[in-house]
Protein backbone atom coordinates (compact mmCIF):
# COMPACT_ATOMS: atom_id res chain seq x y z
CA UNK A 1 0.00 0.00 0.00
CA UNK A 2 2.81 2.43 0.86
CA UNK A 3 5.40 2.50 -1.90
CA UNK A 4 8.79 4.07 -1.43
CA UNK A 5 10.65 4.55 -4.68
CA UNK A 6 14.27 5.61 -4.75
CA UNK A 7 13.59 7.88 -1.80
CA UNK A 8 16.47 9.81 -0.31
CA UNK A 9 16.46 12.26 2.53
CA UNK A 10 19.44 14.43 3.33
CA UNK A 11 19.90 16.67 6.35
CA UNK A 12 22.32 19.14 4.86
CA UNK A 13 25.40 17.03 4.21
CA UNK A 14 24.22 14.15 6.36
CA UNK A 15 22.30 11.36 4.70
CA UNK A 16 19.19 10.08 6.47
CA UNK A 17 18.17 7.46 3.95
CA UNK A 18 19.65 6.91 0.53
CA UNK A 19 17.80 5.60 -2.54
CA UNK A 20 15.46 3.38 -0.58
CA UNK A 21 12.80 1.42 -2.43
CA UNK A 22 10.22 -0.81 -0.80
CA UNK A 23 6.56 -1.76 -0.69
CA UNK A 24 4.83 -1.98 2.67
CA UNK A 25 2.38 -4.87 2.51
CA UNK A 26 -0.46 -5.77 4.88
CA UNK A 27 0.75 -7.54 8.00
CA UNK A 28 3.51 -6.70 10.46
CA UNK A 29 6.97 -5.76 9.22
CA UNK A 30 9.84 -5.23 11.62
CA UNK A 31 12.09 -2.28 10.86
CA UNK A 32 15.58 -2.95 12.14
CA UNK A 33 18.86 -1.13 12.17
CA UNK A 34 21.50 0.24 14.46
CA UNK A 35 21.32 3.80 15.81
CA UNK A 36 21.45 6.27 12.93
CA UNK A 37 20.55 3.66 10.33
CA UNK A 38 17.64 5.81 9.14
CA UNK A 39 14.69 4.02 10.75
CA UNK A 40 13.03 7.14 12.15
CA UNK A 41 13.72 9.08 8.96
CA UNK A 42 11.99 6.38 6.94
CA UNK A 43 9.03 6.35 9.33
CA UNK A 44 8.78 10.14 9.24
CA UNK A 45 8.81 10.06 5.44
CA UNK A 46 6.05 7.47 5.42
CA UNK A 47 4.07 9.48 7.98
CA UNK A 48 4.27 12.55 5.75
CA UNK A 49 6.24 14.56 8.30
CA UNK A 50 9.26 14.77 6.03
CA UNK A 51 9.45 15.38 2.33
CA UNK A 52 11.88 13.15 0.43
CA UNK A 53 14.84 15.07 -0.97
CA UNK A 54 14.61 12.78 -4.01
CA UNK A 55 12.32 9.96 -5.04
CA UNK A 56 8.77 9.45 -3.87
CA UNK A 57 6.72 8.03 -1.01
CA UNK A 58 3.16 7.25 -2.05
CA UNK A 59 0.04 5.67 -0.63
CA UNK A 60 -2.25 4.17 -3.23
CA UNK A 61 -0.37 6.10 -5.89
CA UNK A 62 -0.79 9.48 -4.16
CA UNK A 63 2.09 11.28 -2.50
CA UNK A 64 1.81 11.27 1.27
CA UNK A 65 3.57 14.52 2.06
CA UNK A 66 1.14 17.44 2.52
CA UNK A 67 -1.76 15.24 1.42
CA UNK A 68 -4.50 15.22 4.07
CA UNK A 69 -6.38 12.46 2.27
CA UNK A 70 -3.41 10.11 2.53
CA UNK A 71 -2.51 11.22 6.06
CA UNK A 72 -6.02 10.32 7.25
CA UNK A 73 -5.23 6.68 6.48
CA UNK A 74 -2.03 6.63 8.51
CA UNK A 75 -1.56 6.26 12.25
CA UNK A 76 1.87 7.28 13.52
CA UNK A 77 3.32 6.54 16.92
CA UNK A 78 6.40 8.77 17.17
CA UNK A 79 9.52 7.75 19.02
CA UNK A 80 9.76 10.97 21.01
CA UNK A 81 7.11 12.15 23.47
CA UNK A 82 4.74 14.57 21.79
CA UNK A 83 1.93 15.59 24.09
CA UNK A 84 -0.05 18.42 25.53
CA UNK A 85 0.97 17.45 29.03
CA UNK A 86 -1.90 19.17 30.81
CA UNK A 87 -4.44 16.88 29.17
CA UNK A 88 -5.35 13.44 30.41
CA UNK A 89 -4.47 10.50 28.20
CA UNK A 90 -8.12 10.08 27.27
CA UNK A 91 -8.53 13.78 26.45
CA UNK A 92 -5.41 13.80 24.29
CA UNK A 93 -6.36 10.71 22.33
CA UNK A 94 -9.95 11.94 21.92
CA UNK A 95 -8.68 15.35 20.79
CA UNK A 96 -6.55 13.73 18.10
CA UNK A 97 -9.55 11.61 17.13
CA UNK A 98 -11.54 14.81 16.61
CA UNK A 99 -8.68 16.17 14.51
CA UNK A 100 -9.04 13.09 12.37
CA UNK A 101 -12.67 13.88 11.74
CA UNK A 102 -14.53 11.95 14.45
CA UNK A 103 -17.41 13.64 16.23
CA UNK A 104 -16.66 14.58 19.88
CA UNK A 105 -18.80 11.73 21.27
CA UNK A 106 -17.38 9.21 18.82
CA UNK A 107 -13.84 10.41 19.46
CA UNK A 108 -14.22 10.01 23.22
CA UNK A 109 -15.70 6.55 22.85
CA UNK A 110 -13.04 5.39 20.42
CA UNK A 111 -10.29 6.95 22.53
CA UNK A 112 -11.50 4.86 25.46
CA UNK A 113 -11.47 1.74 23.34
CA UNK A 114 -8.06 2.50 21.88
CA UNK A 115 -6.69 2.95 25.41
CA UNK A 116 -8.26 -0.37 26.39
CA UNK A 117 -6.63 -1.91 23.35
CA UNK A 118 -3.20 -0.91 24.62
CA UNK A 119 -4.04 -1.89 28.22
CA UNK A 120 -4.32 1.61 29.64
CA UNK A 121 -8.04 1.56 30.36
CA UNK A 122 -8.73 3.42 33.59
CA UNK A 123 -5.29 4.95 33.91
CA UNK A 124 -5.98 6.88 30.72
CA UNK A 125 -7.80 9.38 32.95
CA UNK A 126 -4.50 10.51 34.47
CA UNK A 127 -2.82 13.72 33.39
CA UNK A 128 -0.10 12.91 30.88
CA UNK A 129 2.30 14.95 33.01
CA UNK A 130 1.87 12.41 35.80
CA UNK A 131 2.28 9.34 33.61
CA UNK A 132 5.24 6.99 33.57
CA UNK A 133 7.28 6.35 30.43
CA UNK A 134 5.44 3.11 29.74
CA UNK A 135 2.04 4.72 30.13
CA UNK A 136 3.06 7.51 27.78
CA UNK A 137 4.07 4.92 25.22
CA UNK A 138 0.61 3.41 25.48
CA UNK A 139 -1.01 6.81 24.96
CA UNK A 140 1.13 7.28 21.86
CA UNK A 141 0.05 3.90 20.54
CA UNK A 142 -3.60 4.65 21.30
CA UNK A 143 -3.48 7.99 19.48
CA UNK A 144 -2.08 6.24 16.42
CA UNK A 145 -4.99 3.82 16.52
CA UNK A 146 -7.93 6.05 17.46
CA UNK A 147 -8.98 7.03 13.94
CA UNK A 148 -8.81 3.45 12.66
CA UNK A 149 -6.01 3.86 10.13
CA UNK A 150 -5.09 1.27 7.53
CA UNK A 151 -1.41 1.97 8.01
CA UNK A 152 0.27 1.94 11.40
CA UNK A 153 3.80 3.27 11.75
CA UNK A 154 5.22 2.57 15.19
CA UNK A 155 8.59 4.00 16.15
CA UNK A 156 10.00 1.91 18.99
CA UNK A 157 6.58 1.50 20.60
CA UNK A 158 7.69 -0.86 23.37
CA UNK A 159 10.31 1.43 24.90
CA UNK A 160 9.86 1.84 28.62
CA UNK A 161 7.04 -0.72 28.97
CA UNK A 162 7.08 -3.33 31.70
CA UNK A 163 7.15 -7.03 30.64
CA UNK A 164 3.38 -7.66 30.93
CA UNK A 165 2.67 -4.50 28.94
CA UNK A 166 5.21 -5.53 26.33
CA UNK A 167 3.59 -8.92 25.95
CA UNK A 168 0.19 -7.26 25.64
CA UNK A 169 1.47 -4.73 23.10
CA UNK A 170 3.17 -7.44 21.05
CA UNK A 171 -0.06 -9.43 20.95
CA UNK A 172 -2.00 -6.32 19.95
CA UNK A 173 0.46 -5.46 17.16
CA UNK A 174 0.25 -9.01 15.82
CA UNK A 175 -3.52 -8.79 15.89
CA UNK A 176 -3.53 -5.50 13.98
CA UNK A 177 -1.40 -7.15 11.33
CA UNK A 178 -3.74 -10.13 11.16
CA UNK A 179 -6.67 -7.73 10.72
CA UNK A 180 -5.09 -6.66 7.44
CA UNK A 181 -3.47 -3.42 8.48
CA UNK A 182 0.01 -2.57 7.24
CA UNK A 183 2.06 -2.29 10.42
CA UNK A 184 5.67 -1.16 10.37
CA UNK A 185 7.38 -1.44 13.76
CA UNK A 186 10.88 -0.22 14.44
CA UNK A 187 12.81 -1.65 17.35
CA UNK A 188 16.29 -2.35 18.61
CA UNK A 189 15.16 -5.41 20.46
CA UNK A 190 15.37 -8.32 18.07
CA UNK A 191 13.56 -10.83 20.20
CA UNK A 192 10.57 -8.50 20.41
CA UNK A 193 10.47 -8.07 16.66
CA UNK A 194 10.83 -11.81 16.28
CA UNK A 195 7.84 -12.26 18.57
CA UNK A 196 5.73 -10.00 16.35
CA UNK A 197 6.74 -11.05 12.87
CA UNK A 198 9.21 -12.94 10.74
CA UNK A 199 9.15 -10.26 8.05
CA UNK A 200 11.87 -7.68 8.41
CA UNK A 201 13.31 -4.62 6.75
CA UNK A 202 16.91 -4.05 7.71
CA UNK A 203 18.38 -0.59 7.25
CA UNK A 204 22.06 0.22 7.47
CA UNK A 205 23.67 3.60 6.82
CA UNK A 206 20.46 4.81 5.21
CA UNK A 207 20.13 1.94 2.74
CA UNK A 208 17.99 -1.19 2.73
CA UNK A 209 20.37 -4.01 3.53
CA UNK A 210 17.80 -6.79 3.48
CA UNK A 211 14.06 -7.31 3.38
CA UNK A 212 11.76 -10.30 3.51
CA UNK A 213 11.17 -13.31 5.75
CA UNK A 214 14.05 -14.01 8.13
CA UNK A 215 14.83 -17.55 6.83
CA UNK A 216 14.89 -16.27 3.24
CA UNK A 217 17.19 -13.46 4.23
CA UNK A 218 19.40 -15.90 6.10
CA UNK A 219 19.70 -18.15 3.10
CA UNK A 220 20.62 -15.21 0.92
CA UNK A 221 23.69 -14.47 3.02
CA UNK A 222 26.04 -16.57 0.91
CA UNK A 223 29.20 -15.47 2.67
CA UNK A 224 28.08 -17.11 5.93
CA UNK A 225 27.31 -20.86 5.70
CA UNK A 226 24.25 -21.88 7.68
CA UNK A 227 25.13 -23.74 10.88
CA UNK A 228 23.04 -26.83 11.57
CA UNK A 229 23.18 -28.83 14.78
CA UNK A 230 22.63 -32.59 14.48
CA UNK A 231 22.44 -35.25 17.18
CA UNK A 232 22.37 -38.86 16.17
CA UNK A 233 23.36 -42.33 17.34
CA UNK A 234 26.28 -42.76 14.93
CA UNK A 235 27.67 -39.28 14.38
CA UNK A 236 30.91 -40.47 12.78
CA UNK A 237 29.11 -42.46 10.09
CA UNK A 238 26.81 -39.55 9.33
CA UNK A 239 29.73 -37.12 9.21
CA UNK A 240 31.55 -39.25 6.69
CA UNK A 241 28.52 -39.06 4.40
CA UNK A 242 27.86 -35.34 4.91
CA UNK A 243 31.42 -34.20 4.28
CA UNK A 244 31.22 -35.61 0.77
CA UNK A 245 28.33 -33.33 -0.16
CA UNK A 246 29.37 -30.22 -2.12
CA UNK A 247 27.06 -27.96 -0.09
CA UNK A 248 28.64 -28.92 3.23
CA UNK A 249 31.57 -26.65 4.05
CA UNK A 250 32.63 -28.25 7.33
CA UNK A 251 31.61 -30.77 9.97
CA UNK A 252 32.56 -30.39 13.64
CA UNK A 253 32.13 -32.92 16.41
CA UNK A 254 31.04 -31.68 19.80
CA UNK A 255 29.99 -32.96 23.21
CA UNK A 256 29.84 -36.70 23.77
CA UNK A 257 30.62 -37.56 20.18
CA UNK A 258 26.98 -37.80 19.16
CA UNK A 259 26.67 -34.11 18.34
CA UNK A 260 27.60 -32.57 15.01
CA UNK A 261 27.70 -28.98 13.83
CA UNK A 262 27.56 -28.73 10.06
CA UNK A 263 28.22 -25.61 8.02
CA UNK A 264 26.06 -25.55 4.92
CA UNK A 265 26.47 -23.24 1.96
CA UNK A 266 23.13 -24.09 0.32
CA UNK A 267 20.45 -24.85 2.91
CA UNK A 268 17.73 -26.01 0.52
CA UNK A 269 20.10 -28.43 -1.25
CA UNK A 270 21.26 -29.71 2.14
CA UNK A 271 17.68 -30.29 3.29
CA UNK A 272 16.84 -32.16 0.09
CA UNK A 273 19.91 -34.39 0.36
CA UNK A 274 19.37 -35.05 4.06
CA UNK A 275 15.73 -35.96 3.45
CA UNK A 276 16.80 -38.47 0.81
CA UNK A 277 19.45 -39.89 3.10
CA UNK A 278 17.03 -40.36 5.98
CA UNK A 279 14.61 -42.13 3.69
CA UNK A 280 17.37 -44.39 2.42
CA UNK A 281 19.28 -45.22 5.59
CA UNK A 282 18.63 -45.45 9.30
CA UNK A 283 21.07 -42.97 10.86
CA UNK A 284 19.38 -42.55 14.26
CA UNK A 285 18.87 -38.81 13.88
CA UNK A 286 17.49 -37.36 17.13
CA UNK A 287 17.83 -33.59 16.73
CA UNK A 288 18.12 -31.36 13.67
CA UNK A 289 18.31 -27.71 14.60
CA UNK A 290 19.49 -24.76 12.50
CA UNK A 291 21.67 -22.64 14.79
CA UNK A 292 21.82 -19.32 13.01
CA UNK A 293 18.77 -18.74 10.87
CA UNK A 294 17.22 -16.53 13.52
CA UNK A 295 16.91 -12.78 13.51
CA UNK A 296 19.83 -12.19 15.87
CA UNK A 297 22.18 -14.13 13.61
CA UNK A 298 20.90 -12.40 10.48
CA UNK A 299 21.29 -9.04 12.13
CA UNK A 300 24.81 -9.71 13.37
CA UNK A 301 25.99 -11.18 10.05
CA UNK A 302 24.64 -8.25 8.05
CA UNK A 303 25.36 -5.36 10.36
CA UNK A 304 28.16 -6.30 12.71
Amino acid at each position, binding site marked *: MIRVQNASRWYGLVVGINRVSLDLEPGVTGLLGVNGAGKSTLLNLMAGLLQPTAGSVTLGGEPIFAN*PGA*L*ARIGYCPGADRFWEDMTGLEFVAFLGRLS*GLSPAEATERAGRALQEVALGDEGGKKIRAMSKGMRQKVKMAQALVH*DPQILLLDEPLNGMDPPSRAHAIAAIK*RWGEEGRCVLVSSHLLHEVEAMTSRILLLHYGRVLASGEVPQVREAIASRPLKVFLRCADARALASVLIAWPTVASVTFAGDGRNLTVEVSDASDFRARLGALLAEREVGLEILNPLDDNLAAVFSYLVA
Partner: protein
Amino acid sequence: MPVFEQGYAPYDGPRRPLSKRWWPVFREEVQPYLRKRRFLFLLILALLPWAWGILLTFFHTQLGDSENVKAFIAELPKVDESLVAVLLGNFYNLFLLTIVSIWVGSGLVARDRRDGTLAVFLGRALGPLQYLWAKGAALGFFLLVFSLLPVLVLVIFQVGLTGEPAWLWEHARVLWGSALFTLLGPFTLVLFLLALSSMGRSPRLVGLTFFGIVFLGPAACGILYAITRSPLVWFPSIFTQLKALAELCLGAEVHPGEPGLILPPAATLCFFALLAASSVLVLAARFRGRAVLK
Protein backbone atom coordinates in the same frame (compact mmCIF):
# COMPACT_ATOMS: atom_id res chain seq x y z
CA MET B 1 -22.91 -16.88 27.79
CA PRO B 2 -21.61 -16.27 24.28
CA VAL B 3 -18.08 -15.01 23.82
CA PHE B 4 -18.07 -11.78 21.85
CA GLU B 5 -15.36 -10.52 19.56
CA GLN B 6 -13.16 -8.33 21.74
CA GLY B 7 -10.91 -7.12 18.92
CA TYR B 8 -10.58 -3.61 17.61
CA ALA B 9 -13.65 -2.70 15.57
CA PRO B 10 -12.83 -0.72 12.44
CA TYR B 11 -14.61 2.63 12.35
CA ASP B 12 -17.05 3.03 9.49
CA GLY B 13 -19.07 5.99 10.77
CA PRO B 14 -19.10 9.54 9.42
CA ARG B 15 -16.04 11.74 9.61
CA ARG B 16 -15.88 15.52 9.76
CA PRO B 17 -14.90 16.93 6.34
CA LEU B 18 -11.24 17.86 5.97
CA SER B 19 -12.14 21.55 5.67
CA LYS B 20 -13.65 21.63 9.17
CA ARG B 21 -10.93 19.85 11.10
CA TRP B 22 -9.46 23.14 12.34
CA TRP B 23 -12.33 23.48 14.79
CA PRO B 24 -10.97 21.11 17.52
CA VAL B 25 -7.65 22.98 17.55
CA PHE B 26 -9.46 26.31 17.85
CA ARG B 27 -11.61 24.97 20.69
CA GLU B 28 -8.68 23.50 22.57
CA GLU B 29 -6.83 26.79 22.20
CA VAL B 30 -9.71 28.99 23.43
CA GLN B 31 -11.29 26.89 26.19
CA PRO B 32 -8.42 26.89 28.70
CA TYR B 33 -8.33 30.70 28.70
CA LEU B 34 -12.05 30.93 29.33
CA ARG B 35 -11.48 28.92 32.50
CA LYS B 36 -8.79 31.27 33.83
CA ARG B 37 -10.17 33.86 36.20
CA ARG B 38 -7.27 36.26 35.76
CA PHE B 39 -7.69 36.19 32.02
CA LEU B 40 -11.42 36.80 32.26
CA PHE B 41 -10.75 39.65 34.67
CA LEU B 42 -8.47 41.19 32.05
CA LEU B 43 -11.20 40.97 29.44
CA ILE B 44 -13.68 42.58 31.83
CA LEU B 45 -11.17 45.36 32.49
CA ALA B 46 -10.94 45.90 28.74
CA LEU B 47 -14.70 46.25 28.50
CA LEU B 48 -15.05 48.83 31.28
CA PRO B 49 -14.55 51.88 29.01
CA TRP B 50 -17.18 50.48 26.70
CA ALA B 51 -19.54 50.16 29.61
CA TRP B 52 -18.95 53.87 30.10
CA GLY B 53 -19.90 54.34 26.42
CA ILE B 54 -23.15 52.47 27.02
CA LEU B 55 -23.81 54.62 30.08
CA LEU B 56 -23.30 57.72 27.95
CA THR B 57 -25.87 56.42 25.48
CA PHE B 58 -28.24 55.83 28.37
CA PHE B 59 -27.71 59.34 29.76
CA HIS B 60 -28.28 61.00 26.42
CA THR B 61 -31.33 59.00 25.45
CA GLN B 62 -33.06 58.51 28.77
CA LEU B 63 -32.03 61.48 30.93
CA GLY B 64 -31.21 64.09 28.29
CA ASP B 65 -34.56 65.85 28.74
CA SER B 66 -34.40 66.04 32.50
CA GLU B 67 -34.02 69.72 33.51
CA ASN B 68 -31.82 68.94 36.50
CA VAL B 69 -29.08 67.19 34.61
CA LYS B 70 -29.62 68.56 31.11
CA ALA B 71 -26.66 70.90 31.22
CA PHE B 72 -24.39 68.24 32.66
CA ILE B 73 -25.40 65.64 30.12
CA ALA B 74 -25.08 68.05 27.22
CA GLU B 75 -21.37 68.30 28.00
CA LEU B 76 -20.87 64.57 27.92
CA PRO B 77 -19.58 63.10 24.64
CA LYS B 78 -22.09 61.42 22.38
CA VAL B 79 -21.67 58.03 20.82
CA ASP B 80 -20.20 58.73 17.42
CA GLU B 81 -17.01 58.22 15.44
CA SER B 82 -15.00 60.40 17.83
CA LEU B 83 -15.96 58.44 20.92
CA VAL B 84 -15.32 55.11 19.23
CA ALA B 85 -11.94 56.34 18.00
CA VAL B 86 -11.05 57.31 21.57
CA LEU B 87 -12.22 53.98 22.97
CA LEU B 88 -10.37 51.97 20.34
CA GLY B 89 -7.15 53.95 20.11
CA ASN B 90 -6.48 54.98 23.70
CA PHE B 91 -3.45 53.67 25.56
CA TYR B 92 -5.54 51.65 28.01
CA ASN B 93 -7.25 49.61 25.28
CA LEU B 94 -4.07 49.12 23.28
CA PHE B 95 -2.09 48.14 26.39
CA LEU B 96 -4.61 45.44 27.36
CA LEU B 97 -4.77 44.31 23.74
CA THR B 98 -1.00 43.85 23.81
CA ILE B 99 -1.08 41.93 27.09
CA VAL B 100 -3.76 39.56 25.80
CA SER B 101 -1.85 39.19 22.53
CA ILE B 102 1.24 38.14 24.44
CA TRP B 103 -0.68 35.89 26.81
CA VAL B 104 -2.52 33.98 24.10
CA GLY B 105 -0.34 34.52 21.07
CA SER B 106 3.17 33.80 22.25
CA GLY B 107 2.54 30.07 22.64
CA LEU B 108 0.34 29.56 19.60
CA VAL B 109 2.88 27.70 17.49
CA ALA B 110 5.92 27.84 19.79
CA ARG B 111 4.29 25.61 22.38
CA ASP B 112 3.50 22.97 19.77
CA ARG B 113 7.05 23.19 18.48
CA ARG B 114 8.45 22.87 22.00
CA ASP B 115 6.24 19.89 22.88
CA GLY B 116 6.64 18.28 19.47
CA THR B 117 2.87 18.22 19.00
CA LEU B 118 3.12 20.19 15.76
CA ALA B 119 4.25 16.99 14.06
CA VAL B 120 1.40 15.04 15.61
CA PHE B 121 -1.19 17.58 14.47
CA LEU B 122 0.14 18.09 10.95
CA GLY B 123 0.56 14.36 10.55
CA ARG B 124 -3.19 13.97 11.04
CA ALA B 125 -4.94 15.17 7.93
CA LEU B 126 -4.76 18.74 9.15
CA GLY B 127 -3.16 21.02 6.57
CA PRO B 128 -0.78 23.79 7.66
CA LEU B 129 -3.29 26.38 6.50
CA GLN B 130 -6.07 24.88 8.65
CA TYR B 131 -3.70 24.66 11.58
CA LEU B 132 -2.65 28.30 11.25
CA TRP B 133 -6.25 29.36 10.70
CA ALA B 134 -7.30 27.62 13.91
CA LYS B 135 -4.46 29.18 15.90
CA GLY B 136 -5.00 32.63 14.41
CA ALA B 137 -8.75 32.41 14.93
CA ALA B 138 -8.18 31.68 18.62
CA LEU B 139 -6.14 34.84 19.11
CA GLY B 140 -8.40 36.84 16.79
CA PHE B 141 -11.41 35.71 18.83
CA PHE B 142 -9.97 37.32 21.96
CA LEU B 143 -8.75 40.43 20.15
CA LEU B 144 -12.31 41.06 18.98
CA VAL B 145 -12.98 42.09 22.59
CA PHE B 146 -10.65 45.04 22.00
CA SER B 147 -12.04 46.00 18.61
CA LEU B 148 -15.23 45.15 16.76
CA LEU B 149 -17.21 43.27 19.41
CA PRO B 150 -17.74 46.11 21.93
CA VAL B 151 -18.43 48.52 19.08
CA LEU B 152 -21.25 46.27 17.90
CA VAL B 153 -22.66 46.08 21.43
CA LEU B 154 -22.43 49.85 21.74
CA VAL B 155 -24.22 50.34 18.43
CA ILE B 156 -26.96 47.90 19.43
CA PHE B 157 -27.49 49.82 22.68
CA GLN B 158 -27.42 53.14 20.84
CA VAL B 159 -30.03 52.09 18.28
CA GLY B 160 -32.07 50.19 20.87
CA LEU B 161 -32.20 53.04 23.36
CA THR B 162 -32.83 55.81 20.85
CA GLY B 163 -35.12 53.71 18.67
CA GLU B 164 -33.64 55.44 15.64
CA PRO B 165 -32.21 53.08 13.04
CA ALA B 166 -31.34 56.16 11.00
CA TRP B 167 -28.43 56.63 13.42
CA LEU B 168 -26.77 53.71 11.65
CA TRP B 169 -26.81 55.54 8.32
CA GLU B 170 -25.63 58.80 9.84
CA HIS B 171 -22.77 57.08 11.65
CA ALA B 172 -22.09 54.21 9.28
CA ARG B 173 -18.39 54.92 9.66
CA VAL B 174 -18.55 53.70 13.25
CA LEU B 175 -19.27 50.23 11.91
CA TRP B 176 -17.17 50.04 8.79
CA GLY B 177 -14.36 52.04 10.39
CA SER B 178 -14.23 49.67 13.36
CA ALA B 179 -14.37 46.67 11.05
CA LEU B 180 -11.51 48.12 9.01
CA PHE B 181 -9.53 48.86 12.19
CA THR B 182 -10.06 45.27 13.34
CA LEU B 183 -9.01 43.88 10.02
CA LEU B 184 -5.91 46.02 9.59
CA GLY B 185 -4.85 46.36 13.22
CA PRO B 186 -5.59 43.44 15.57
CA PHE B 187 -5.82 40.87 12.78
CA THR B 188 -2.45 41.96 11.41
CA LEU B 189 -1.10 41.55 14.92
CA VAL B 190 -2.51 38.01 14.88
CA LEU B 191 -0.52 37.29 11.72
CA PHE B 192 2.58 38.89 13.23
CA LEU B 193 2.32 36.86 16.42
CA LEU B 194 1.73 33.65 14.49
CA ALA B 195 4.87 34.34 12.49
CA LEU B 196 6.86 35.26 15.59
CA SER B 197 5.58 32.23 17.45
CA SER B 198 6.45 29.93 14.57
CA MET B 199 10.06 31.06 14.76
CA GLY B 200 10.70 29.92 18.32
CA ARG B 201 10.23 26.98 20.60
CA SER B 202 9.88 28.98 23.80
CA PRO B 203 6.56 30.79 24.34
CA ARG B 204 8.26 32.89 27.01
CA LEU B 205 10.94 34.07 24.63
CA VAL B 206 8.36 34.83 21.94
CA GLY B 207 6.32 36.79 24.49
CA LEU B 208 9.36 38.74 25.63
CA THR B 209 10.31 39.51 22.04
CA PHE B 210 6.84 40.81 21.26
CA PHE B 211 6.81 42.77 24.51
CA GLY B 212 10.13 44.31 23.55
CA ILE B 213 8.94 45.19 20.06
CA VAL B 214 5.74 46.79 21.33
CA PHE B 215 7.01 48.59 24.43
CA LEU B 216 10.71 49.21 23.86
CA GLY B 217 10.10 50.21 20.24
CA PRO B 218 8.25 53.41 21.20
CA ALA B 219 11.00 54.25 23.70
CA ALA B 220 13.61 54.07 20.98
CA CYS B 221 11.35 56.06 18.65
CA GLY B 222 10.91 58.68 21.37
CA ILE B 223 14.66 59.15 21.65
CA LEU B 224 14.95 59.46 17.89
CA TYR B 225 12.04 61.89 17.83
CA ALA B 226 13.71 64.05 20.45
CA ILE B 227 16.75 64.27 18.19
CA THR B 228 15.15 64.57 14.77
CA ARG B 229 11.67 66.03 15.52
CA SER B 230 10.39 64.09 12.53
CA PRO B 231 7.08 62.24 13.07
CA LEU B 232 8.24 59.60 10.61
CA VAL B 233 10.58 58.15 13.24
CA TRP B 234 7.42 56.73 14.86
CA PHE B 235 6.90 54.56 11.80
CA PRO B 236 8.05 51.26 13.42
CA SER B 237 6.12 51.83 16.67
CA ILE B 238 3.19 49.41 16.77
CA PHE B 239 1.48 51.41 19.51
CA THR B 240 1.65 54.66 17.58
CA GLN B 241 0.54 52.98 14.41
CA LEU B 242 -2.48 51.37 16.08
CA LYS B 243 -3.52 54.73 17.45
CA ALA B 244 -3.00 56.33 14.04
CA LEU B 245 -4.99 53.53 12.45
CA ALA B 246 -7.91 54.11 14.79
CA GLU B 247 -7.84 57.81 13.86
CA LEU B 248 -7.59 56.99 10.18
CA CYS B 249 -10.42 54.45 10.17
CA LEU B 250 -12.81 56.48 12.31
CA GLY B 251 -11.82 59.86 10.88
CA ALA B 252 -11.42 61.35 14.37
CA GLU B 253 -8.61 62.06 16.80
CA VAL B 254 -7.94 59.80 19.74
CA HIS B 255 -6.72 62.74 21.86
CA PRO B 256 -8.70 65.70 20.51
CA GLY B 257 -7.15 69.06 21.13
CA GLU B 258 -3.72 67.70 22.01
CA PRO B 259 -0.84 68.14 19.61
CA GLY B 260 -0.39 64.62 18.25
CA LEU B 261 2.41 62.91 16.46
CA ILE B 262 0.87 62.96 13.06
CA LEU B 263 1.92 60.14 10.79
CA PRO B 264 0.79 60.37 7.17
CA PRO B 265 -2.12 57.93 6.50
CA ALA B 266 -0.07 56.31 3.76
CA ALA B 267 2.68 55.57 6.27
CA THR B 268 0.23 53.85 8.60
CA LEU B 269 -1.32 51.78 5.83
CA CYS B 270 2.14 50.98 4.54
CA PHE B 271 3.24 49.85 8.02
CA PHE B 272 0.40 47.38 8.45
CA ALA B 273 0.74 46.15 4.87
CA LEU B 274 4.45 45.54 5.47
CA LEU B 275 3.77 43.83 8.80
CA ALA B 276 1.15 41.54 7.24
CA ALA B 277 3.26 40.78 4.18
CA SER B 278 6.38 39.97 6.17
CA SER B 279 4.37 37.77 8.54
CA VAL B 280 2.79 35.90 5.64
CA LEU B 281 6.22 35.43 4.07
CA VAL B 282 7.64 34.03 7.31
CA LEU B 283 4.68 31.67 7.74
CA ALA B 284 4.87 30.56 4.11
CA ALA B 285 8.58 29.90 4.47
CA ARG B 286 8.04 27.87 7.62
CA PHE B 287 4.95 25.93 6.61
CA ARG B 288 4.29 25.82 2.87
CA GLY B 289 5.85 22.82 1.20
CA ARG B 290 8.22 22.44 4.12
CA ALA B 291 8.62 19.34 6.16
CA VAL B 292 7.15 19.51 9.64
CA LEU B 293 10.36 18.10 11.02
CA LYS B 294 13.78 19.33 10.07
